[in-house]
């Protein structure tokens, strides 16, 4: 018999057994009898009229089974890819929502836009068929940059979307902000770019679809973070397949980071094609294909202004942002730079008035959507950068200005002027902890040591908060969500006392099979090894919204906790019958139901056995079996946060920035498995460091070509880019989640870019540098130093 491994323990991850021994089961591992291969033909142009497609040569090629195009989609009367959020402007006018056909119709709007799907006996034959398609394009000028796209006379993507503006969104009290700015002793201003990113999960996207004529059922295996949502969006809104006739399976998935939390046209096309050709069809993206089709992240241009009084207290904050949507609206697209951005502009500060305007803009680029952190890293970057700018302009220490404006621990719950109410937190505690852990006290010594080698050393802070645990459905509905955001869990206790959990979140690297098993092990007192977590299959799991927005533990874990409570409650009823005691006298602890004040008890296994063999059982009042389900809709977001401190060294000769130390003290609420939390923080921080120093998706204006279209040109952070990180938690408990958890999946990515860039600016501040755009590449730093035109240290 194994042991209970409960909350706070750090067992090795259950799932790693299969991953590390090469026994994972990914979509591309799956083979179906009679399976054909599919290849997508994608637009090589950023913007073009699609005049016609001649399929004849392709169809005549050996092995080619079918060639499908937008015309076929139209002929079959299929729907457009839906957007899950409908936002509105200040006057209540809904966003412009042009159709997003699953295969292009009439026009292509980004390099990678899907034009045709070729199905053949083998991938090679499908590729040959694809090369034989004759596609007649009338190439139009592309517009890829935000500033360019909103200019008068810019190329326009959709006839009915003037200036390419999808929505002119705003939040906050504009008048109050204007009044406050008039009274300000100082106004800090900052223009910045939040660079465009490409998620690059290790496993490229892939899908297999199969149609069974005997039952009229479809099965789609897909690399998805949310199979039930794909079933709903694709079945109900695109392909008109009844929900009970569609099974969506997302088996092992090799990383997502948001890239796999959208309903993609590929999924719909392949499912539709499987019925048309009466064969299972498989498609696996290449890495290069992923670059021009996986949804990208970030891509903002922002002007921000912070009003302060003479003591450095923030009076008001005004932010104007242009946010790139790419060529069409993706599943969450318009929600990210608006609802997940504006409400975070309060940060951990008491700023009384905030106004934010976001123009959501179409361009000839891959659709932009959520990428780890989604909106909150962008907000944190603007705020934490401008706080540093204000501090330096007013001659106030950067830590001191933060302290003067921080929400004190006692002030929670704290209502911000931008919708959200923080339930708990202790930003000052995180800051104090981080200052010690980062040995800020001795930074001067380290800076001098760097200087003696001709290097510039800098220190950067980011004291941040985020909103996750997506999301309270009612609140989200008011903001434009078109679906619910609850989560569900079923706890199935087997007659022998082992437990299978069916949960609607999806594990693709986060360690759910371990964390959730720990919760059940702790709560039911069953051995850790006797709990299995099932996810990712709409035929096996009742329902679910999936994994994104640091919601799995916060929302899914809460549903799981509630379902386990129901199991315990039913167990007490059974125990009360078996032990002939009043139900109120039954206690459950450490896997035992006992009568208070006596030594009479029944084990969890005995109760499970009695539930399934109900010979001595109150059948009149209680159903047999021991299986409970719970749906949980959160009452608020959760607000993890913390303090990150980055320390960099800049080589002025080459402009190279080296991250030499990194410290994070985060408040993630209750920690279920500290090892997994640490891993999530490490991974998150690395992605944020990637944004700050290395990653950049670059398009060519005019042609719309992606210039950073492979790992040879898009720089992912690597192990040798990073120091050993110091991460710690300083937790306050969430007041409204069952276990006090806050979520930890995105905090690293949210806190880190600002910390790193603040450190780079600090290192160069003696040269008059006040801002560095991301990524802080050697060329960019060198250029700043050239412009600073100060003598650069020789040797």
């Amino acid at each position, binding site marked *: 018999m194994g042991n209970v491994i409960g909350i706070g323990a750090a067992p090795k991850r259950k799932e790693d057994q299969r991953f590390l021994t090469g026994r994972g089961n990914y979509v591309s591992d799956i083979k179906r009898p009679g399976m054909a291969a599919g290849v997508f033909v994608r637009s090589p142009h950023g913007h073009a009229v699609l005049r016609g497609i001649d399929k004849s040569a392709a169809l005549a090629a050996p092995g080619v089974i079918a060639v499908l195009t937008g015309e076929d989609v139209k002929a079959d009367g299929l729907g457009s890819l839906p957007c899950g959020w409908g936002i509105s402007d200040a006057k209540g006018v809904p966003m412009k929502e042009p159709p997003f056909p699953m295969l292009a119709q009439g026009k292509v709007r980004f390099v990678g836009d899907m034009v045709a799907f070729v199905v053949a006996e083998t991938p*090679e034959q499908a590729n040959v068929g694809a090369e034989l398609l004759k596609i007649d394009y009338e190439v139009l000028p592309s517009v890829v940059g935000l500033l360019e796209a909103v200019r008068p006379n810019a190329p326009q993507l959709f006839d009915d979307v003037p200036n390419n503006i999808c929505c002119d969104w705003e939040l906050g009290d504009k008048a109050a902000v204007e009044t406050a700015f008039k009274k300000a002793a100082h106004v800090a201003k900052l223009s910045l770019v939040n660079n465009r990113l490409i998620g690059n999960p290790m496993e490229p996207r892939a899908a297999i679809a199969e149609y069974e004529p005997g039952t009229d059922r479809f099965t789609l295996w897909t690399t998805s973070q949310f199979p039930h949502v794909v079933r709903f969006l694709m079945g109900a809104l695109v392909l008109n397949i009844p929900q009970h006739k569609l099974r969506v399976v997302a088996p092992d998935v090799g990383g997502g980071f948001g890239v796999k939390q959208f309903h993609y046209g590929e999924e719909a096309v392949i499912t539709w094609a499987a019925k048309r050709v009466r064969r299972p069809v498989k498609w696996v993206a290449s890495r290069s294909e992923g670059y021009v089709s996986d949804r990208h992240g970030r891509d903002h241009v922002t002007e921000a202004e912070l009003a302060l009084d003479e003591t450095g207290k923030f009076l008001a904050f005004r932010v104007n942002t242009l946010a790139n949507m790419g060529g069409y609206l993706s599943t969450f697209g318009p929600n990210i730079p608006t609802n997940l951005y504006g409400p975070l502009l309060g940060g951990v500060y008491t700023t009384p008035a905030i106004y934010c305007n976001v123009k959501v803009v179409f361009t000839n680029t891959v659709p932009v959507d959520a990428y780890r952190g989604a909106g909150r890293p962008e907000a944190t970057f603007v705020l934490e950068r401008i706080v540093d700018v204000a501090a330096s302009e007013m001659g106030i220490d950067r830590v001191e200005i933060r302290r003067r404006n921080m929400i004190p621990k006692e002030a929670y719950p704290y209502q911000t002027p931008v919708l959200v109410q923080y339930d708990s937190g202790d930003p000052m505690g995180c800051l104090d902890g981080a200052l010690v852990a980062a040995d800020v006290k001795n930074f001067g010594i380290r800076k001098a040591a760097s200087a003696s080698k001709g290097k510039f050393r800098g220190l950067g802070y980011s004291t941040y908060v985020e909103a996750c645990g997506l999301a309270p459905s009612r609140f989200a509905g008011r903001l434009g969500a078109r679906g619910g955001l609850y989560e569900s869990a079923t706890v199935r206790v087997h007659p022998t006392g082992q437990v299978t959990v069916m949960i609607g979140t999806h594990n693709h690297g986060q360690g759910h099979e371990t964390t959730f098993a720990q919760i059940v092990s702790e709560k039911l007192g069953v051995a850790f090894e006797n709990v299995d977590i099932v996810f990712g299959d709409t035929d096996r799991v009742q329902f679910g919204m999936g994994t994104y927005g640091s919601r799995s533990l916060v929302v899914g874990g809460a549903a799981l906790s509630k379902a386990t409570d129901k199991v315990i409650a039913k167990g007490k009823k059974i125990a009360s019958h078996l032990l002939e005691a009043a139900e109120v006298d039954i206690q459950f602890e450490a896997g035992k139901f006992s009568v208070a004040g006596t030594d009479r008890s029944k084990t969890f296994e005995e109760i499970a056995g009695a539930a399934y063999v109900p010979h001595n059982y109150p059948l009149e009042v209680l159903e047999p079996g021991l299986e409970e389900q719970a749906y949980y809709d959160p009452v608020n977001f959760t607000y993890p946060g913390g303090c990150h401190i980055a320390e960099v060294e800049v080589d002025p000769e080459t402009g190279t920035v080296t991250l030499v130390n990194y410290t994070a003290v985060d408040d993630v609420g209750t920690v279920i498995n500290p090892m997994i939390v640490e891993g999530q923080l490490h991974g998150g921080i690395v992605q944020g460091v990637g944004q700050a120093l290395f990653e950049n998706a670059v398009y060519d204006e005019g042609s719309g070509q992606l210039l950073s279209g492979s*790992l040879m040109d898009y720089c992912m952070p690597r192990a040798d880019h990073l120091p050993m990180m110091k991460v710690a938690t300083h937790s306050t408990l969430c007041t409204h989640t069952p276990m006090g958890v806050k979520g930890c999946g995105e905090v690293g990515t949210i806190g880190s870019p600002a910390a790193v860039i603040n450190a780079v600016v600090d290192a160069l501040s003696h040269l008059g540098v006040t801002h560095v755009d991301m990524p802080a590449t050697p060329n960019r730093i060198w250029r700043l130093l050239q412009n600073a035109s100060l003598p650069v240290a*020789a040797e």
Partner: protein
Amino acid sequence: MKPFSYHQPDQIPDAARLLTSIEDSKLVAGGMTLIPTLKQRLANPPALVDLSKLGSLKGITDGGATITIGAMTPHAVVAASKLVQAKTPGLAALASMIGDPAVRSRGTIGGSVANNDPAADYPAGVLGLGATIVTSVREIAADKFFLGLFETALVPGEIITAIRFPVPLKAGYAKFKAPASRYALVGVFVAKFADGVRVAVTGAGSGVFRVPPMEAALSSNFDPSAVAAIKIDTDGLTSDIHAEADYRAHLVTVMAKRAVDAALS
């Protein structure tokens, strides 16, 4: 990848014959450059002629005043070679900086030199040391071999069998890695011989090139300070999303200094 026939000759003449008799056929050495282009369907040779069974193309030999490295010698073997480390440590260091361990254990010096990628490392070492490219039909001086962007003096059917390097008095290589690819954004190889200094630059332009003013300055004073003030003209230098031409020009000076430093240490 499109279908092709695959040949594994064990004699150089057989390889040469296959190469000339099957039109558009290609040699494959480590495959580190060739295979990705096949996978992306950018090249579709009807036949591949694999050099891996040609034993005479492997290995490193000591010729006293020269070192000869067989064309099929992987980068990792050059990097770890005691002989190269002892006689021309700068060349061993260069090999150790190529790609990653997997690339170094497959990729070969012959493949790298034949490919003449404008950002590859070996061309800087070969030109900087004034090496001789030995082929199945002749010997070609490095100065006559590299003809610009992926262009070399090789004629169809010609196979590199070895590279013969003169042993310098001192030599060093400094590489500023391109952030994503880790090829040379700028790499500079300096070599000091009794009769003067050679300086070869890779990564900065459309192909490896020498820098006569630096060579002259270092010939009279082999010290980093000798090149510190020598600026490179940006004409012909590459500008791309990673580095603008003037930055590359600046890096040539910085890497030249560091290469001299490395040669002296």
